C-alpha cells in the first residue's frame, strides 16, 4: 500500500513539473508574439498588465535594459541564476508583499532581445509545492483511512476465523469429555475451515470405527475365550472332586481329562493365533512382504492340497485357471490361509455329491479367484454378517470352527488392496476374491 501511495506521489510530481514547463513555454510563445507585433513597448505593456498583483498569477516576469535596470515585471531585481541540467534555471524568490510565507523556489528561463534587453519568464513553484503538499496530505489521510479500514476488516475477519476455530475447539472438548458422537458443524461454504472440519470429522469417524473394533475384540475375549477357559477349568475341577482310588481307573480317568484339556487348550491357542493374525492384517502393515505371485499356480497348489479331502467326502473339486498365469503381488503365506479358509468352508458345508469349483480369471482389470459350491449357501441378509468375528450361522453352530475364518480372509484380502464378497451360486455359495494385478503385468 505504501508503494502505491509513493507511486501516486511520484506521478503527481512528474505531472506538475511538466505542467510548469508547459505553462512557461506557452507564456514565452505569447510574449514573443507580442514583441514581434508591437515591439518593446508592447512587450512592456503586456508584461505590466500580466504582472499586476491582483491577477493572482504565479507567473514571474522581468524585463531589463542592458545594465539590468528593470523595465517591467514583478521582480525587483535580476536574480542570481544558475542553469541546471534540464535547461531551466531555479532561484530563491524573496518574500514580497502578501507572499510572506518564507522563501519560495521559482523556475525560470531568460532571453536576450535586441539592444541588450533581457527578458526573464518564470513561475513561482510555491503553488506546485502547495499542490504536492495537498496531494501528500490527501494520500496520507487516505492511507490512514485504509489502514483503519484494513484493521477493522482484519479484526472482523480474524474474529470470524477465531469463532470457527473456537467451534472446533469446543467440539473437541466435548468429544474428549466423552461425547464421542459429536462432530464439528459444517457451514457448507466449502472453504478451508469447512475442509478442515470435514477432515476432522472423517478422522473422528475412523477413530470411532477403530474403537468399535477394539470394543468388539474385548467383547469377543469376554464371550468367546472366557467360556472355553471356564469349561477347561471346570473339567479339571470335576476330575479332582472324585477321591482317587488305588486301582488303575483313577489314572485312566485323569489321563482322559488331561487329553481333553490339551484339546481345549489347542483350540484356545488356535483362536488366539487367528485373532492376532486378523489384528495384524487389519493393522495394514504389509512390511514389504508383498512379492510377485502367480495366483493361478497358487490356486492350483491349494486345489491339489484339498482335492483328496474333498473326494473323501464324496465331493468333486475342480480347478480352472484362465489364463494359466495371473501375476499379482502378495504374501503367499497370508493368502494361503485366507483362500484355504474359503475352500475348507466349501468342503465342510457342501453335502455329499456336491461340486466345488475353484476358478482364477482376469476380470475388469482385477485378478479374480472364486470358490463356488452347490451347498446350502448363505441367506442374502447374512452374507455381510458372517465376516464379523466369531459370528456363526445358526445352522453351523454344531460344526467345528471358531467363527474367525472369514474375518481373517477379509482382513488379508483387504491388506492386499482387494475385496471379498459372498454371492448366490443358485444354488450354493460363491466366494469371490478380487485382487489388484501386479503393476507390470499387462
Amino acid at each position, binding site marked *: 500500500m505504501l508503494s502505491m501511495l509513493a507511486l501516486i506521489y511520484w506521478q503527481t510530481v512528474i505531472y506538475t513539473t511538466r505542467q510548469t514547463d508547459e505553462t512557461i513555454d506557452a507564456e514565452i510563445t505569447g510574449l514573443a508574439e507580442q514583441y514581434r507585433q508591437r515591439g518593446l513597448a508592447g512587450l512592456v505593456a503586456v508584461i505590466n498588465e500580466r504582472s499586476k498583483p491582483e491577477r493572482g498569477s504565479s507567473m514571474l516576469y522581468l524585463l531589463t535594459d542592458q545594465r539590468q535596470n528593470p523595465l517591467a515585471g514583478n521582480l525587483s531585481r535580476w536574480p542570481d541564476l544558475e542553469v541546471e541540467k534540464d535547461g531551466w534555471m531555479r532561484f530563491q524568490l524573496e518574500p514580497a508583499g502578501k507572499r510572506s510565507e518564507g522563501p519560495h523556489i521559482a523556475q525560470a528561463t531568460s532571453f536576450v532581445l535586441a539592444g541588450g534587453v533581457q527578458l526573464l519568464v518564470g513561475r513561482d513553484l510555491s503553488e506546485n509545492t502547495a499542490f504536492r503538499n495537498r496531494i501528500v496530505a490527501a494520500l496520507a489521510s487516505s492511507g490512514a483511512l485504509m489502514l483503519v479500514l484494513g484493521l477493522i476488516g482484519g479484526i472482523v475477519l480474524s474474529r470470524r476465523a477465531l469463532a470457527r476455530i473456537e467451534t472446533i475447539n469446543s467440539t473437541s472438548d466435548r468429544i474428549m469429555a466423552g461425547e464421542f458422537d459429536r462432530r464439528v458443524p459444517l457451514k457448507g461454504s466449502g472453504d478451508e475451515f469447512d475442509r478442515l472440519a470435514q477432515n476432522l470429522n472423517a478422522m473422528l469417524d475412523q477413530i470411532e470405527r477403530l474403537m468399535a473394533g477394539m470394543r468388539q475384540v474385548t467383547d469377543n475375549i469376554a464371550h468367546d475365550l472366557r467360556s472355553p477357559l471356564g469349561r477347561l477349568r471346570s473339567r479339571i475341577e470335576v476330575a479332582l472332586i472324585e477321591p482317587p482310588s488305588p486301582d488303575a481307573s483313577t489314572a485312566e480317568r485323569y489321563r482322559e481329562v488331561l487329553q481333553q484339556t490339551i484339546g481345549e487348550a489347542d483350540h484356545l491357542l488356535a483362536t488366539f493365533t487367528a485373532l492376532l493374525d486378523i489384528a495384524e492384517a487389519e493393522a495394514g502393515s504389509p512390511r514389504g512382504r508383498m512379492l510377485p505371485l502367480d495366483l493361478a499356480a497358487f490356486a492350483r497348489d491349494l486345489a491339489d492340497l484339498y482335492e483328496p479331502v474333498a473326494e473323501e467326502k464324496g465331493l468333486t473339486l475342480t480347478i480352472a485357471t484362465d489364463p494359466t498365469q495371473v501375476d499379482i503381488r502378495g504374501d503367499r*503365506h497370508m493368502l494361503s490361509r485366507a483362500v484355504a479358509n474359503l475352500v475348507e468352508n466349501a468342503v465342510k458345508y457342501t453335502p455329499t455329491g456336491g461340486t466345488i469349483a475353484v476358478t482364477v480369471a482376469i476380470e475388469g482389470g482385477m485378478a479374480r479367484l472364486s470358490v463356488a459350491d452347490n451347498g446350502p449357501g448363505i441367506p442374502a441378509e447374512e452374507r455381510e454378517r458372517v465376516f464379523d468375528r466369531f459370528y456363526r450361522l445358526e445352522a453351523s453352530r454344531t460344526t467345528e470352527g471358531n467363527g474367525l475364518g472369514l474375518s481373517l480372509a477379509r482382513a488379508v484380502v483387504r491388506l492386499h488392496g482387494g475385496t471379498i464378497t459372498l454371492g448366490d451360486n443358485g444354488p450354493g455359495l460363491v466366494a469371490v476374491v478380487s485382487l489388484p494385478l501386479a503393476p507390470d503385468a499387462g
Partner: protein
Amino acid sequence: MKLLVVEDDREAAAFLVKGLKESGHAVDHAADGREGLMLATTERFDAIVLDRMLPGMDGLAIVAALRASDNATPVLILSALDQVDDRVRGLKAGGDDYLTKPYAFSELMARLESLLRRGAGGKTLTTLKVGELEIDLLARTVRRGSHEIELLPREFRLLEYLARNAGHVVTRTMLLEQVWDYHFDPQTNVIDVHISRLRQKIDKGYAKPMLHTVRGAGYCLKAA
C-alpha cells in the same frame, strides 16, 4: 545325544530339560545368551534348542556367531514371533528349523530328531532305502520289492520326506511345511487324506504295513 537348551524362562526350561532327558538325551542348560554362546563354542553338542528372545543377547546373534566360527551344530529356534518373515529371518541367520511358542512337546521332539538325523547323515543321497522300499531320487521312481509303484509328483515328495525320516515320527505340521510349504493349521484333515492315499499305493496288498499312524503325534514310515 548331547543337547544344549538355551532358554531364560525357568519353568519352560525345566519342562524342556525334563522331557528331553526322559527321551534319553544328555541335556545342558544355559539361562542367558552369553552363557549359551560360551557353552556352545566350548563344548560339542549334537543339537541346540535356542530361545529367540534372551536377556543379554538376541538368539539369532548366537546362531550367527556360531555359523561365523564354522560351527555347524544343528539349531532349532524357539520363538513367540510367528510371522513368516520372523521365521525367514531365523532361518537366514543360520537356524535349521523354527518352532513357534507355544508348541506341543511331541512336535519339538519330532523336529529335533529330524535335525539330529540330518546332522548325522550329511551326504547327498541318490537312493533312499527303507526295508524293501526303494526310492530312486534321480529317476523319481519307487519300488517295493520287485513291484514298481506309480506316484503323483506330490505323493513322491511326501514319501521322500517320510523316507528321509524313516523310523521316526513326523508331525502333520512338519509335512505341511516341508512338502507343501504352507504355514497354517488346516481345519480339516487334509494331511491324513494325503497319507491314506499314499498308504493305498505302498501298503495295499502287503501283509505288513510300512506307513504307520502315531496317535496324537503324526506318522512314521518304517521297515515292515
